[in-house]
């Protein structure tokens, strides 16, 4: 694989690679060249349906297909898939527990120039609040391939959160991912950084910076936010004494909240959150926006020291 690849591209590739499974039907809403489901269409045109610019309808149509034994991937930008079509996802897919996989691309502020209207920063909070919904936010192409496969193998609704921006590989072909389990990338004993999506790369950079200062850092890729891996969180709380979370999402209701929910009730230790702090995004170059909103290795380092000082 090349050095940098967007998880939406990895999604299109994985979906196409697994397309031999004839149960798979792919729906898109006039964004197939951006969500990359067009790759699937080229190989399996008879199982790809463009539903036009009508995301609510697409989600309910996906539900109907799923009642007939199909494994349906319904794709749009995260803001429309999780935001505009929330109630269809909730009532048509979530409540009847249907086998629909929502491939939501262009999540987060790394959408860049399109600006706040197109930058979903609340989608994880919305989706994980639906009973029975699985939520996965993969960090790189390897993790995405795992997520697509896991989504197909798991019966029930799954929300896949994917990005527009090309991101470096933080895993390799030997990484063993497990559904519902966080992936330990680096062990350590002083502080744990729990990250997902494109923030995993910055978590690893932050770990390197902290190590230079003699701080021993544990890094976990929490690709699956729901069901969350309680065990790995409690173990981190007990063994490292404090936690920093890092996500490209509002800190209200996302990964940080999910981790804090476990820590508070099971083994209270300081949890500091790196994420978007109750603000909308804006237009700009993706990397400039990540900097502007504090989604950086430096900010993770700062929060790590704050967390450790609370001990």
């Amino acid at each position, binding site marked *: 694989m090349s050095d940098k690849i967007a998880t939406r591209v990895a999604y299109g590739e994985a979906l196409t690679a697994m397309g031999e499974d004839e149960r798979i039907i792919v729906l898109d809403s006039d964004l197939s060249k951006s969500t990359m489901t067009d790759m699937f269409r080229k190989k399996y045109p008879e199982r790809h349906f463009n539903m036009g610019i009508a995301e*609510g309808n697409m989600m*309910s149509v996906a539900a109907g297909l799923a*009642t007939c034994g199909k494994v349906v991937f319904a794709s749009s930008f995260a803001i429309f898939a999780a935001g505009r079509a929330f109630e269809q996802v909730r009532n048509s897919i979530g409540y009847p527990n249907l086998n629909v996989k929502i491939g939501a691309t262009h999540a987060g502020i790394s959408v860049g120039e399109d600006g706040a209207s197109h930058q979903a920063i609340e989608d994880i909070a919305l989706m994980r609040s639906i009973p029975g919904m699985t939520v996965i936010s993969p960090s790189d192409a390897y993790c995405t391939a795992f997520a697509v496969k896991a989504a197909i193998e798991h019966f029930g609704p799954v929300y896949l959160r994917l990005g527009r921006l090309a991101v470096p590989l933080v895993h390799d072909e030997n990484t063993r991912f497990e559904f519902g389990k966080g992936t330990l990338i680096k062990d350590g004993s002083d502080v744990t950084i729990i990250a997902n999506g494109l923030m995993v790369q910055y978590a690893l950079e932050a770990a390197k910076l902290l190590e230079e200062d003699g701080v021993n850092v544990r890094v976990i890729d929490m690709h699956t936010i729901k069901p969350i891996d309680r065990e790995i969180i409690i173990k981190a709380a007990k063994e490292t004494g404090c936690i920093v979370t890092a996500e490209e999402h509002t800190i209200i209701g996302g990964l940080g909240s999910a981790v804090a929910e476990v820590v508070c009730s099971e083994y209270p230790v300081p949890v500091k959150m790196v994420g978007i702090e109750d603000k909308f995004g804006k237009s700009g170059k993706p990397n400039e926006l990540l900097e502007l909103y504090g989604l950086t290795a430096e900010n993770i380092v700062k929060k790590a020291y704050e967390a450790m000082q609370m001990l």
Partner: protein
Amino acid sequence: MEQKEILALKKTAANIRKGVIIATGAAGSGHPGGSLSITDIMAYLYFKEMRINKEDPRHPDRDRFVMSKGHCAPVLYATLAEKGFFPKEDLATLRKTESYLEGHPNMNSVPGVDMSTGSLAQGMSAAVGMALAGKVDKKDYYVFVGMGDGELEEGQVWEASMAAAHYKLDNLICFVDYNGLQIDGKITEVMNPEPIAEKFEAFGWYVQSIDAHDFEQIEKAVKNAKKQKGKPNMIVAHSTKGKGVSFMENQAGWHGKAPKQEERDRALAELDEYIASLEV
């Protein structure tokens, strides 16, 4: 249709109407008005038309029915119970905490329910998905849909309509229960969806208009719909809200209000009297 058959369907429909009254009466809430207006269509579909088997309610080749106006769960349940999908006595547990008969149709708890509905227009879209699956799998089943006229105010109805015509879903047969009333009053006064037939025609559907309480017209329209190729089917069924119970007919107030004990008894007596008149 033979007279004997019409009489039998009339009797079945009256029994289904009794089920609606018993269920909503026992629940103390629910939606009798729109349930009663679509009852004759339900009786025709489940007792004359649809390829279904109560012993195997999830058979992949069965015809499907989606109650897109999910608040009319009472008539769907009463029809399924009449057909033998579950005991009729259970209708009196509608909406109760310990019951499997949810206030709006639940496909995972109620045998014979093909789609969970309740949020308007979503059922129609789900039916589009079922019809599309039928095309992908080259199956010959039909997907029937019960919709409300007030429901047409939901934008998603028109998204679904575009998709159904675009993919030429001629295995989709929708009924609009055109009783002219919604919760807040006349549909033309609340938010006018008319002209209904012309709108669906413009969206590329094959449209027929019928009397929703005439079994011969219902059958003729369904048979005709099945002959059409390349277009989804809309049957605009002119109906009377609250049909079959004199004091509920044409009253918007009975959209979402359950009969009290005395009203329940009066309604059941009327329906029993009607059934007796059919047997003479």
